[in-house]
């Protein structure tokens, strides 16, 4: 039997005093924090995928399975620093369709 997973797309804004934050470092930080809090098993079932990132606009879209949405939002709230830079990863919109999520990219 084929099981189709339902995905959620979370549009996030990066709020920071610095003009530039490396997206790779943010991706690593999200993965790392997810694994710290929910373990390797949890992060593997979350289906995290970084769909779209814009370093200039300081925004991006993270895809996850609909079961892990609340865990991902908890992880985003827990992150305060990326590579020594104070940052808020602020979720602004959640959608089940990527095209709709893209409209909310600042």
């Amino acid at each position: 039997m084929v099981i189709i997973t339902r995905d959620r797309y979370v549009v996030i804004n990066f709020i920071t005093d610095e003009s530039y934050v490396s997206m790779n470092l943010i991706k690593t930080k999200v993965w790392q924090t997810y694994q710290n809090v929910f373990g390797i098993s949890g992060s593997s079932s979350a289906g995290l995928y970084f769909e779209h990132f814009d370093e200039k606009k300081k925004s991006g879209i993270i895809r996850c399975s609909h079961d892990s949405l609340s865990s991902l939002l908890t992880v985003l709230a827990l992150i305060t620093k990326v590579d020594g830079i104070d940052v808020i990863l602020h979720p602004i919109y959640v959608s089940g369709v990527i095209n709709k999520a893209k409209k909310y990219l600042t």
Partner: protein
Amino acid sequence: MSNRENYVNKVQLSFESNVSLIDGSTILDFIEIANIINIPIMAVDNLTIDERNKLIDDASISRFSLVSPAHMYNLHCNTSYNLEQAITVLRNHLSDMDSNQHIIVTRKNLSGKNIDEIKRNLPKIRFQYELIGIFSETKNILKWAAHDRRIDFFAVDLSSNISSIDAALCSLIKQNNKFVELSLASLLTSGDDKEFSQSLRNGKKLMKLLLQNRTPFIFSMNPKSPLHLRNGSQMRFLGELLGVSYNQTKKAVFENQFSALISNIIKLNDSSIFEGVKEGI
């Protein structure tokens, strides 16, 4: 998609009840971040009502408009309104409020070694602050404070010893319509995994106790830096880590703090000599 999943699209009113300005950040730094993440009300620790009013005048040249809760109350509520009516009217006003407008509340955190010291300090600060919280690890002080009508919040830091809070105290807090204030800052600022897991363990233990005794509680971030601010929805998701579901924390990020604030504003504005008796002309 369920309403719960689409939480970020709905307006979640937030109340940050304990902002400290000890790390060199100014109130406008906090307001700037609060404006982006939608926090319309902030209570600033150790700021008296006079200092706040001066701050509001000084901030009139900035792009933000700061107001005091008393001003908002006088503008939108009649003196004939009871507490529930006032809360409903002001809540509706907050939902329609301009996004650049922010309400600044004054707050004092009391801490003392013994009951006498707190008894001496309380009357001095009574009319200088709109909210009063108490932080202590001594059981006797907390039990005494639970009976005192001037105290609103019992502040608890998850990284400290929480054994002073037991079922008897929870029951007293509930009877006297006060709130336990959980500071979630230690979840964000813990230095290593050991500290983080200790804070989580304390938080889970405390939440279990509060839920068992149906004690009202509130969440605060207690931010030292503006980038440690989190809005109501984010605080509710952090609450999920402590073993309390998203729906159970509905009142913990705005309603409880707001009702305590409005009830204090009514008390401070009231010209009664004592309850039910007003001075005649």
